[in-house]
């Protein structure tokens, strides 16, 4: 393999690997549609308790 061709193949391969590992699109992820961020919001109408020592008050 000539030098130029080798570097082209090598460069493309590296780009491919980096793309699959770091791409934010995650096209190659195991869980393609499962990376959606989940927003956690508490329900303001609930009435909380706290643990003080061994008692829950």
């Amino acid at each position, binding site marked *: 393999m000539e*030098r130029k061709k*080798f570097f082209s193949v*090598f460069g493309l*391969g*590296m780009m491919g*690997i*980096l793309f699959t*590992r*770091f791409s934010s699109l995650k096209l190659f992820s*195991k*869980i393609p549609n*499962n*990376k*959606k*961020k*989940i*927003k*956690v*919001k*508490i*329900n*303001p*109408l*609930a*009435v*909380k*308790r*706290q*643990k003080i*020592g*061994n008692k*829950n008050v």
Partner: protein
Amino acid sequence: MSDHKNDIQNPAPNYWRSFEELYSDQKFLAEKNNEFKEGASDAPNTDKMSPISRRKFLALLGASAAVAGTACSDYQDKGEIVPYNNKPEEITIGKANYYASTCTGCSSACGILIKTREGRPIKIDGNPDHPVSKGKICSQGQASIMGLYDPDRLKSPKRKIGNGLDDADWQEVDKEIVLALSTIGSREIAIITKEIVSPTQNEVLKDFIKEYPATKVYSFEQFNESIRKNAWQKCYGSSDFPFIKWNEAEVVVSLDADFLGTGSHRVENTRLFTERKNIMNKKFNRLYSIESNLSLTGMNSDYRLMLRPDVQYSFVMAVINELQKKNVITNSVNASAFSLSKLAGDFGLSEKILNHLVNDLSKKKGKAIIYAGDHLPENVHIAVNLLNEELGNSELYDTEHSTVNVRNLSSLNEFKNLIDKMKAGNVGVVIHFDTNPVYNLPADFNYAEALQNVDEVVTLTEVENESSGLSNHVLPIHNNFEAWGDSKTRTGFYALQQPVIAPLYSTRQKESILLTWINGDTTSYKETIFHEYLMANWENSIYPTLNSKLAFNPFWYGALHDGVVRSNDISNGIEDFNYSVIMELKNAQVKSDGITIQIKESYSLRDGRFANNGWLQESPHPVSKVTWDNYAAISTTTAKQLSVKNDDVIEITVNNRTLEIPVFVQPGHVDNSITIETGYGRTNSGSVAEGAGFNANTIFFSTGGLTPWVYEGAAIKKLSRTYNLVVAQTIYDFTEKDKKDLPQKRGIIREGTVEQYLNNPHFLNGKEHKVLESVNPPVPYDGVKWGMSIDLNKCLGCSECFIACNVENNIPVVGKEEVDKGREMHWLRIDRYYSGSAEDPKVSLQPMLCQHCDQAPCEVVCPVVATTHSPDGLNQMIYNRCVGTRYCSNNCPYKVRRFNFFNFRDSFNDGYQESPVFALLHNPEVTVRSRGVMEKCTFCVQRIAEARSDATREGRTIKGSDVTTACQDACVTNAINFGDINDANEEFYKYRNHELGYYVLEELNVIPNVTYLAKLRNTHSEEA
């Protein structure tokens, strides 16, 4: 060299570049005439060069860069950690909040406390203020937290398009359904629900009926107490079967009743029952279990007899006859055709045990209770009610409280009529209100077929199920922790359910969906619609009956804080026994031929509603220890007769329907009978449940059997294939002499009888517990030293502690294949040991976890000191230091260390546990371990650290009683105690130093910090 002195004085007028040039060095001048330096034009000496060519070097460089890039790029995206711009008032960073609520996992409606961290619910425990559950809940209740973060949950409404379901808009589907409801004409609208225990939900249904008068509500539970209630109605004129004061019963006779393992009152039953297994006040009850399959209740019995369900009537009548002969009871029922000695002969029952049973019932009149299983026929229950009445055992009925039926369950006949109407095209709309009738209704109803004649089928559900697959519209509903609600299960109190997290997806509260349809205006929906309805119902209907001195608003917030509200309604009491009912007790033997089949509720998945919960699927069966599957349990003798062994697949034919299922030979199973647990074999219920087990409901029928759960005369055919059942703990060979009763021989299990103990409290260890010599000098522990005690008299092997440990410590689900290789990650397991014969074994149970040994064998073999001992006696794991040699696990005599062969979160079910929503489930106080790391029980070190931090803040030293472990909190029977070994003033100290205390494998002298209190069997003295 030339004369330098003269040259310096008369320098040549030219430029020079070196002293050699300046002074015309001869060697330099000679070299100057050569174009190249000496050797520069020579051919290179390849012998002295690196053997790697330039090209190869670059290729290697490239490959190594690629490998390094690949290997180092697998770090999880940890996201951004940013502080709150507006911190919610309720949240203190790093501090847990708790919310009182109600579990909706079954109709028991236990009170729960939901622990949240930064708004995320992460752990469920019992609400100590709840008058029934009293701070404890079952394993399903604890594991239900996984349901909230189940990635398989429906995230938006769906509409049927072709053969599949497609995402839709809420308003559009509402419009379509409202149109179908309002144009129903003369046809029926059927709403199918689970058992309704919420008064406000019932009001919503009533309002729905007002708006759409063609509506009929059908409530169904596959496993219910309808037969018991009907029998009670006939005997006492009311369908409210009373609660039993198990804690006052000295003798309990269980007729095929698994009252400690299944059924809706099991948490309360278990707590009360074990109050009388008390080594401190030396009060012990005696349990006789007469059952077909070895159940959790049977495992914990003092005497056990094996009898098929179809012979239970003969048995109870024979007991009546025996007691009549002894003049213990004097009723007019004619039971002369029944004889205990004949039964003993026919079914191989021990006459000695039968004599004990009859004598105990005679002597303990008013202090014994006989209790029949829900699946037994009505005549058995009537005979049992009569026997309890005659023996004065009605003293043990709790007359202060009685059940409250918000809405009665529909009978099977009502369902039969519904199906007929559906088949005739007289039902226009069917609404599955968080229920799954396609899977759970009896197979002979052919419900799925009948649904095809209904124009509009709507399923309200969290995760897709068999019923949603046949629906036109599938509407996602809130999880328990996102929803409002209330419940009324018995007299004396109400309970409230409050949402602790805003909905994660575009789901709706199921009652809000009905309210929107009642409204008719589909744009009127808002998230608070049911909250307002609930508050209004309480303000107008419930609050006025409570005679509260508070105004409604402070009352309401107080009620939400407590989770329960006391009410003034009282029990109706118990009427006199109606003796005319004994006419129904026929004086004729009931005996059937062939093989009897019993369908039973699963210990883990119940009726299938928890099938998509990985923790519960992987929870070993309390008796067989099989995970991820159900099976046909048969006796050793029947297995021989059918020429089958474990894993052989058989075909069971009942009423022309067949079930193919693998065999599991269960020691202690009665002959000519098969027991199958249901809840498995789901076909559309999420990715975890997929492929797990076999659908036993294919042979669940409304008629044709002794009861819907028991069939006689099944045909069995052995098929040529096998199926791999995975067992978490295998059964050692009963026949091999050396191995027989090995746990007892090695002192793993140490037991005695109550009689032995009362005669000599030091029978187990002698008066002075011998301390073994050690070559290692003892390490002084001056401050707190942590220890645990486990009372094997109270431990029933129910798995509550096991599930609590999983939830608290972020234990991953690994899947069936990995469990098969022994790679389950459970920090705590419940070992089940058999002794005696395979046909009729005795069972001993032992929770096994890291013993935190003072002379821990794991610590001395770790080459990187990843496992060490803390100054307060904990055997610690340092995950960052562990390199995964597994020497520690190899050297642990208790085999309680678990190794992460993979990142199980990633490897199980295609990364199911790596989903972002699943990460919200994790306890932030506990490290999530990855591949290559050893792990084990930490004695909940995170709780110790929190308690120590609290104590420091309060300016005091930490006490043993400041800490409770997750397993201890969960244990319904309070078998687990935890505390400071050095503090003689603590309750724990009494257990640690109790005369029944022993260490497992004590002869190894590893000095464990877990003490087991030996089990005492309350048998008669001659069997000591």
